[in-house]
C-alpha cells in the first residue's frame, strides 16, 4: 500500500540522526512519563520506534486520503456561507481523518493531550502532508499556534485551549493588516486593529481589519493588536487569543488565489470581539510573534521540501512513461540531468530542513527547562549556541528551500512538456502551489535581511568550520577539499564587501553572500550524510561540484563590483 513516509528513505535516515539521542533525552527528561502515560516511551529506541510508527500513519493517510483529495479540493476550494468558511469536501475529510488518528497537537505535552513529539518528527509529518497537498498542510500546520500558546500563555489559558487541539480544533495566526505586511510594527496605524481592556471582566475587545489571514475562520486565533493607546511602534502591540465561538468577527471575503486554493485566505473584520491576553502586554510582536514566525518559517521549509518531493516524483513518473523517438524520455541526457538535479536539490534542502529542526528542538528544550530550574553553565552555553544557530538557519532554510521548490516545480512541469501546461496532470497544481512559499511568512528578500546576520556576525562561518572539523572517511576527502576551497572564496568575498564599509553595498550583495554560505552548508550536510550512508555520496558530489561553480560565479560578480555600480540600478 502506498505510504508517503515509507517510500522516502531520507526521512527515516534523518529521524535516526546521531543528535536525536540528545533531543529525545531532553524532550522526555529521562523518560519520566513512562510510568504515567501508557503511550510514553520507555527509552530512546522506543521513542524513535514510536515516531516511526506514527509517521507511518501519516504517510498512509497522506497517500491514501489527502493526495487523492488534492485535485478536487483545488477545484472546489472553500466557500463563504452565512459568515462561515466552509472547507471543500476533501479538506473536511482530511481534517477528520487526521483528527481521528490523533495527529493534531503532536508537539504538545501529554498533560494537554498532546503526543509530546520533538520538532524533528513533527516537521517530517508536515513535509509528508505537504507532499500530498500543500494547501491542506497550512490548515494542518497551524497547530503551531498551540506551541506558542504553550510557551507564552498563562496556565489557565493553556488548560482551557490546549486540550482542544487534540479534539481537532483548527487555528489561525492573525497578524497581517492592509497596511502592515512585511512591516508588522506598523500594525494599527489608522483604522486597523486595536484592543481595549475591560478590567472587570479581564477581557480585551478587538476592533479593526485583518487581511490575508490563512484559515481565518479557525476555532482558535492568535491575534496581534495594538493594546497601548498612543503608541506607534512594535512595543505597543500585544498578542490575544480569540475563540471563534464568541462570534465577534465578520468574514468579509475569501481571496481568490493562484495556488494553495484549498486553504482559505480571508479578510476579517473584528467588531468588539472579546479576546484574552497571551503573556504580557507589549510583548506581542517583539517576543511572541517572532517565535511564532520562526516556527511558521520552519513550516514553510517543510512545505517546500514536500512540494519539491511531489514535483520530483511527478517528473520521474512522467519521464519513464512518456515515449518519444522510440524510447522513454528519461533516457535522454537533457531529461535525466534535469530530474537528477531536482532530486539532489530536494535532498539538499531536506538535509538543511532537519538540521535546522534539530537546532530548534535543542534550544526550545533548554528554554523549557529554564522555566522550571536554573540551567547548568554548560547547558546555558549549549542553549545559546543552538538558539543562535536556529536564528540564522531558519531564514536561510526558508529562503533556499522555497526558491529551490519553485525551481523544481518549474523543471518538473518542463519535463511534462505541453502536457504539463494542461490541467490534466498534478504538476500544474503543484507548480501553482509552490509559488507562495517564497512569499508568505516573509518574502525571500526579507529572509535575506534576517539571514545575512549569519554572514556579518560570522555565525555561518563558525558552523562551517565545525563541519570541516568533523571526522569523515578518506574516500570523501576530495569533496571536502572543494568545500574548503569554497569556504576560502566565501571569506574573501565577505571581507571584500565589509572593506567597502557601505551598508547599501552590503545589502546589494546580501543575497549572493547568504546563498554562497547556504551552498557550502548544504554541501557539508550532504557530505556528512554520506559518512553515515554511502548512498548519499553521488548526491553530495553532484551538489558540491555545481555549488562550487555557482559560488565562483557569484564571487566573481561581487569582487568585480563597486559601490558606484549601484547607481546603474537605483530607480530615480
Amino acid at each position, binding site marked *: 500500500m502506498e505510504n508517503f513516509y515509507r517510500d522516502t528513505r531520507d526521512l527515516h535516515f534523518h529521524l535516526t540522526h546521531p543528535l536525536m539521542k540528545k533531543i529525545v533525552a531532553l524532550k522526555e527528561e529521562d523518560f519520566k512519563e513512562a510510568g504515567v502515560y*501508557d*503511550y*510514553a516511551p520507555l527509552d530512546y529506541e522506543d521513542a524513535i520506534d*514510536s515516531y516511526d510508527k*506514527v509517521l507511518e500513519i501519516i504517510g498512509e493517510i497522506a497517500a491514501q486520503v489527502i493526495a487523492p483529495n488534492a485535485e478536487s479540493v483545488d477545484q472546489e476550494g472553500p466557500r463563504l456561507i452565512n459568515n462561515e468558511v466552509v472547507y471543500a469536501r476533501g479538506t473536511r475529510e482530511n481534517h477528520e481523518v487526521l483528527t*481521528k488518528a490523533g495527529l493534531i497537537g503532536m508537539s504538545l505535552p501529554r498533560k494537554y493531550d498532546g*503526543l509530546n513529539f520533538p520538532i524533528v518528527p513533527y516537521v517530517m509529518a508536515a513535509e509528508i502532508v505537504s507532499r500530498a497537498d500543500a494547501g491542506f498542510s497550512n490548515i494542518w500546520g497551524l497547530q503551531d499556534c498551540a506551541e506558542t500558546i504553550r510557551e507564552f500563555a498563562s496556565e489557565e489559558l493553556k488548560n482551557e485551549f490546549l486540550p482542544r487541539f487534540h479534539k481537532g480544533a483548527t487555528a489561525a495566526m492573525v497578524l497581517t493588516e492592509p497596511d502592515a505586511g512585511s512591516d508588522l510594527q506598523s500594525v494599527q496605524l489608522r483604522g486597523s486593529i486595536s484592543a481595549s481592556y475591560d478590567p472587570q471582566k479581564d477581557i480585551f475587545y478587538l476592533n479593526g481589519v485583518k487581511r490575508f489571514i490563512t484559515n481565518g475562520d479557525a476555532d482558535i486565533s492568535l491575534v496581534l493588536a495594538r493594546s497601548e493607546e498612543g503608541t506607534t511602534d512594535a512595543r505597543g502591540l500585544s498578542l490575544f487569543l480569540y475563540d471563534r465561538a464568541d462570534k465577534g468577527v465578520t468574514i468579509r471575503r475569501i481571496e481568490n488565489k493562484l495556488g494553495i486554493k484549498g486553504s482559505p485566505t480571508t479578510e476579517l473584520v473584528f467588531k468588539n470581539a472579546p479576546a484574552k491576553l497571551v503573556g504580557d502586554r507589549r510583548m506581542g510582536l517583539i517576543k511572541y510573534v517572532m517565535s511564532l514566525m520562526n516556527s511558521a518559517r520552519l513550516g514553510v521549509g517543510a512545505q517546500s521540501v514536500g512540494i519539491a518531493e511531489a514535483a520530483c516524483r511527478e517528473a520521474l513518473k512522467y519521464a519513464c512513461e512518456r515515449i518519444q523517438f522510440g524510447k522513454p524520455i528519461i533516457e535522454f541526457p537533457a531529461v535525466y540531468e534535469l530530474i537528477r538535479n531536482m532530486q539532489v536539490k530536494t535532498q539538499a534542502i531536506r538535509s538543511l530542513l532537519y538540521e535546522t529542526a534539530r537546532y530548534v528542538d535543542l534550544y526550545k528544550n533548554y528554554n523549557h527547562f529554564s522555566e522550571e530550574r536554573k540551567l547548568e553553565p554548560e547547558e546555558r552555553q549549549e542553549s545559546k549556541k543552538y538558539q543562535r544557530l536556529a536564528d540564522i538557519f531558519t531564514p536561510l532554510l526558508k529562503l533556499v528551500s522555497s526558491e529551490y521548490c519553485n525551481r523544481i516545480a518549474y523543471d518538473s512541469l518542463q519535463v511534462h512538456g505541453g502536457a504539463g501546461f494542461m490541467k490534466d496532470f498534478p504538476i500544474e497544481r503543484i507548480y501553482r502551489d509552490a509559488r507562495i512559499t517564497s512569499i508568505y511568512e516573509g518574502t525571500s528578500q526579507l529572509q535575506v535581511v534576517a539571514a545575512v546576520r549569519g554572514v556579518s556576525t560570522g555565525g555561518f562561518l563558525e558552523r562551517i568550520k565545525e563541519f570541516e572539523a568533523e571526522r569523515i572517511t578518506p574516500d570523501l576527502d576530495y569533496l571536502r577539499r572543494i568545500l574548503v576551497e569554497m569556504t576560502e572564496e566565501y571569506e574573501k568575498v565577505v571581507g571584500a564587501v565589509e572593506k567597502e564599509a557601505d551598508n547599501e553595498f552590503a545589502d546589494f550583495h546580501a543575497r549572493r553572500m547568504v546563498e554562497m554560505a547556504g551552498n557550502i552548508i548544504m554541501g557539508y550536510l550532504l557530505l556528512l550524510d554520506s559518512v553515515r550512508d554511502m548512498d548519499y555520496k553521488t548526491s553530495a558530489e553532484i551538489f558540491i561540484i555545481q555549488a562550487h561553480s555557482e559560488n565562483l560565479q557569484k564571487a566573481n560578480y561581487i569582487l568585480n563590483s563597486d559601490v558606484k555600480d549601484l547607481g546603474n540600478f537605483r530607480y530615480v
Partner: protein
Amino acid sequence: MKPLKIIVLAKQVPDTRNVGKDAMKADGTVNRAALEAIFNPEDLNALEQALRIKDQAEGSQVTLLTMGPGRAAEIIREGLYRGADHGFLLTDRKFAGSDTLATSYSIARAVSQNEYDIIIAGRQAIDGDTAQVGPQVAEKLNIPQVTYVEAIEEITEFYIIARRRLDNGIERVKSPLPVLITVHGSAPPCRPRIARRVMKYKHARTLTELQDASEDYIRLFQDRPYLKIDEWSVADIKADEDALGLSGSPTKVKKIENVVFKAKESRILENSDQDIESLIKELIDNHTIG
C-alpha cells in the same frame, strides 16, 4: 443504551491486490512468502462497523478473533491500534489445512467460549473469495445472519436494522440479537490507526512472541496486563479434533489450472465513421447492446 459485546472475525491474508510476477508457485498455489500479509480489506470494514456501535453504546467491548499462524497476531495489534479492546488468536498446528467448514467449526467453538451480542465479519477474504465462513459460523451457533451489510441503520439492545448491498439494489433487514453480520466493501472504510493507541499497543504480544523478548520487556509486560494477546489452542476451545484441520475438511482440490489469456482480446479500429458503424452493428447483432 446498554453496552454490547461485539466479536469481530478477521483474517490475515496475502495482499492479492498487488500481485507481482512471483505471486504464484509453479504448482499453481499462492506463494504467500512473496505477498505482503495484510488485514483482509472487508474485515476492516467489519471492524469499523463494530467501532461505530461502540461509539453509540458506550462501554461496549470490541473483541477481535483471528485464526492463523503465530504471525497473525499482527492482525490483533492492528485492530487494537484502531480501537478494538481485546484480541484472541486461535492458533494450533492442528488447525492447518482447514477448509471453510473446518474453519467455521473452529471459530464457532471459540466464539461460544465468549459472551456476545453481535458477531461481525467481512463478507469474504481476498485469498479464497468464498464468503462462506461467516454464514457457516452463524449456522453452527444457531443464530440469525445478515450478509452483505453496508450500514447498520439502527441498533438497540434487542435488534438491529441493517442495510444490505445487493446486485440489484439494497435491502433493509431487521434481526433480533444475537446476530452475525457480514460486511460488504461498500461500507465505510475503517478509521485510521490512532497515534496514542499505536504507541500503547505496539508492545502487545502473544505468550509465544514473548519467548524472544528481553527481561526488561517481560517486566513491562507483567506490569501492563492489557498487553497480553490471548492464544487459544484446540484444547482451549474444546473442539473435536476430527472436525478440524485436514481431517475436518471435505473440500478436496482436484486440479489447479493456470489460465493464461492467449487470444488477443482487443481490436484496433480506425477513427472513421465506417469502422464505428460496423462495430455498432456487430454489437447490436451479438446483443451486447440494444
